[in-house]
């Protein structure tokens, strides 16, 4: 027995030694693995990515969320939700551009769009006629009177009416906003201006509505008549409205302008740091989209079973420009948050002798369809939504510059054609809205194209000729600069560092011959471009452009804008 115990102990000792050996091997392998994890290169072979493939992981488990207007207001007014660090946008590619994604598809920013294409926007049809399309239920959110109908194929549409005192106002705003946001690159739903004959309104027997008691009950003709009493009636006896087609997929509620959806594996970039959401402040300012908040967005679960992804939509443009949806936009809109302490306290302690400047703005006498919209007092940098928006708060000059370049893509002719889509019965209304959009666009460009060094579109030819553009000069919002200072360096991508001695060059225009020594034998070369302009000293902050030697010559692969 003792020898047996000894034998057993020996066996255990042997096993223990083996395990110890194994553990040591494991530790060594881990160390090797860690050692193998070298410094990341600055640029990957697929940089700059043009598409962020954020639909690859199945998001079928995402669940609908519902927003509270009261909570949303209180949270954003009294708290500071989101990551408030002043950092560059995190979803841009190495060229400082926004890749295509489930949020954004580069359209007017990447290619020339024909005016017809811009005007058509998201719509798949020229017009729709909703006569006899049955009402299937009430409209569940928002203050605008309306209901939901289905077309003969069963597609769901939401009908929203214009307010009685401002016929054509909200419906006009809706289609103009949808066309512009679509061209900019956002996902928006199809929307059509329609005229509804009250004699041809049909209610399905299963249609329901919620009465003021909170009970859902069958919808009656009297319910529709009550809605129509709050709607603008046209001289022909019909009611003008917008018919918005529901997007494909399963509704998931709205997206917040901060954080990420915890149930969406593809949503990894905090929304407050997404450039297209930060930059949407510029678009909102241009169009006076003061209702640009999370609750006016839409997430849809799209795709086949097992391979679904969340698609993010901008939604509800009935309260842009001079429209407040059910009334003319209030003068405060765009000028001050609903609750803003400093002007309120000044007004309080001075017993009203302090008058906020926007109160004194004169709005021209225009058609009721215009609402309250102007361009003279408009100051893009001071523009405000209804209450704070985290992504807007975190917008940096480079975000605004990116957005302003997109705004600059809308020509006067394109804007006139977009406004015509609203089919205003008064030509003066269409003309006024067009002129106001043009003037506001120009102010946006002056404000935000000049806020950073506006060097764009750098190219380095195989022959070593560098060309680039000055976006502010090209847009006509700044004079030509005195010159550019170029600092060339060879660049080591593996270590993300410059090699050798930089070489400086001064040129008077956006063109230069690269020093041959810099290009010879280099895989990467960088050039820091400073713009010297007496009116814009901030332009001296360099834009650093990185080029990679490829089979077809030098390709721009990186751009950083201070």
């Amino acid at each position, binding site marked *: 027995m003792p020898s047996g115990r000894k034998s057993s102990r020996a066996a255990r000792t042997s096993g223990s030694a*083996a*395990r110890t050996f*194994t553990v040591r*091997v494991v530790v060594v*392998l*881990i160390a*090797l*693995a*860690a050692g*193998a*994890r*070298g410094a990341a*290169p600055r640029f*990957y*072979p*697929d*940089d700059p*990515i043009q598409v*962020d*493939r*954020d639909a*690859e*992981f199945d998001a079928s*488990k995402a*669940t609908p*969320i*519902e927003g*509270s*207007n*009261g*909570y949303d207001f209180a*949270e954003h007014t009294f708290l500071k939700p989101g990551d408030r660090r002043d950092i560059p946008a995190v979803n841009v590619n190495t060229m400082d551009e926004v890749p295509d994604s489930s949020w954004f598809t580069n359209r007017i920013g990447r290619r020339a769009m024909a005016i017809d294409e811009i005007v058509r926007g998201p719509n798949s049809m020229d017009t729709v006629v909703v006569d006899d399309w049955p009402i299937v239920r009430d409209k569940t959110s928002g203050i605008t009177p309306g209901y939901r109908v289905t077309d003969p194929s069963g597609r769901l549409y939401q009908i929203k009416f214009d307010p009685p005192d401002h016929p054509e106002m909200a419906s006009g705003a809706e289609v103009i906003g949808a066309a512009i946001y679509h061209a900019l690159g956002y996902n928006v739903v199809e929307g059509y201006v329609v005229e509804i004959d009250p004699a041809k309104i049909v209610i399905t027997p299963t249609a329901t509505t*919620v*009465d*003021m*008691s*909170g009970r859902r009950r069958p919808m009656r003709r*009297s319910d529709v008549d009550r809605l129509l009493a709050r709607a603008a009636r046209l001289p022909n006896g019909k009611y003008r409205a917008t018919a918005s087609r529901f997007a494909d997929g399963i509704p998931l509620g709205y997206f917040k302008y901060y954080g990420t*959806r*915890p*149930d*969406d*594996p*593809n*949503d*990894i970039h905090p929304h407050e740091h997404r450039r297209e959401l930060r930059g949407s402040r510029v678009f909102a300012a241009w169009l006076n989209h003061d209702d640009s908040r999370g609750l006016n967005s839409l997430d849809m679960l799209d795709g086949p079973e097992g391979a679904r992804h969340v698609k993010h939509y901008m939604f509800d443009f009935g309260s842009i420009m001079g429209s407040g949806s059910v009334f003319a936009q209030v*003068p*405060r809109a765009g000028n001050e948050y*609903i*609750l*803003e302490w400093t*002007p*309120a306290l000044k*007004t*309080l302690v001075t*017993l*009203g002798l302090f*008058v906020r400047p926007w*109160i*004194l703005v004169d709005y021209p006498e225009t058609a009721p369809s215009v609402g309250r919209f102007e361009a003279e007092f408009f100051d893009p940098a001071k523009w405000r939504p209804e209450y704070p928006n985290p992504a807007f708060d975190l917008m940096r000059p480079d975000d605004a510059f990116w957005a302003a370049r997109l705004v600059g893509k809308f020509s006067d002719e394109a804007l006139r054609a977009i406004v015509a889509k609203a089919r205003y019965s008064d030509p003066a209304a269409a003309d006024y809205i067009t002129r106001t959009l043009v003037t506001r666009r120009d102010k946006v460009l002056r404000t935000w194209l000049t806020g950073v060094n506006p060097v764009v579109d750098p190219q380095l030819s195989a022959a070593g000729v560098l060309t680039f553009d000055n976006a502010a000069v090209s847009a006509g919002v700044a004079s030509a600069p005195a010159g550019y200072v170029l600092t060339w360096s060879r660049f080591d991508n593996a270590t993300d560092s410059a090699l050798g001695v930089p070489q400086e060059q001064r040129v008077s225009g956006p063109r230069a011959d690269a020093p041959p020594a810099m290009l010879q034998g280099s895989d990467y070369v960088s050039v820091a471009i400073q713009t010297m302009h007496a009116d814009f000293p901030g332009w001296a902050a360099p834009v650093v452009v990185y080029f990679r030697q490829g089979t077809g010559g030098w390709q721009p692969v990186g751009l950083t804008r201070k």
Partner: protein
Amino acid sequence: MCRLLLVAVQVLAAAVVYAQEPATRAEELARRREEKSRQLAPPEPGRLERTLLALENGRLFERILNPPEGFYPKIGNITAGGGFAMGPAYRKPLFGERGSFNALAIASVKRYWLLDSRLEWPQLAGGHVFADVHGRLFEYPQEDFFGLGPASRRDDDVIYGFRGSEVGATAGVRPVPWFALGARFDHLTPSVGPGNTGRSIGQVFRGSTAVPGLDAQPDFLRYEFSADLNLREPLGNPRRGGQSKIVYQRFDDRDLGRYSFRRIDVDLQGYVPLVRDRRVLALRAFASSADADRGQDVPFYYQRTLGGPDDLRGFRQFRFRDRNVLLLQVEYRWEIFTAVDGAIFYDAGRVAPRFEDLGFDDLESDYGIGFRFGTRNGVFLRIEGAFGSSGGKHFILRYGHVF
């Protein structure tokens, strides 16, 4: 042992592969998404958000405070000076929603109570005709009384109880939205008692000579005709326009033949917009004159009063009482921010036994400052401080607008 080593090597091989830097940007992003896919969680709104959402979706405020149908709690005031009151109320749409039945039973912290019911048709004939039949029972046990006339003394403050019933009907036409003509008929059964607290009216004032109507209260028939020109914009919290209202009332003593009288009330309001309607100068002039039939008198409990949160705000409720009343009010209102206005006000007025004694001399007055909380559609709460009167300082917390 070999198996353990094999497993370890396999795991580590995978770890080594994963520990390698991604080869592409797409791979880097995919790894981050894969990482997140292992940590998914449903969105979980906080308790406050869930609560607010439930309130909004369920229309709880509307359902609780002002539902179109069913029982709901009624909260507010029964009458001026009655204190905070609440109780159950009921509403039932009738006649295809052209009419409704309303009833309520509320009581206040000062033991005031009211039972009220009415059957009403507010929008007949396309909104051009309105009518109702109504009835109410009430008891107000702590009504202040300081004597009659402009010289009444603050130290004579006594309490009386007032109870009664009203049964009647109203009808009117509204040819345009801003003008209405109305007529009303009521049977009234007033009754005066000692009150439930403090010094009773009978301890200081005795007999109908000094205080008409104190010793006996007959039933009355009341006939009323009114015209209302209302050009206020917006109606609930006006910034411009005005309102002119004139009401003629006839009270017929059905039992004693001692207290039949007539009364005319004229209420003029004007709103001068300043600074694009963000400031308003609000003006009001109210005059009331009652005239008894020959050999008759106006009972004290139906005489108009001044004093309290709606007229002379620097004085106690019902501080002055007589047959004739003149009230002048001016307010400067300024918008502080959406939903909150400030106001500076000045009130002046007096009562008199004869109409010709009313004038701009010897007016009682006060001034003050306050805040109003509400929207374009109306003021739901006002907080004011009134000063500068012989009645001392008064803090006012009141539901609804002053005028």
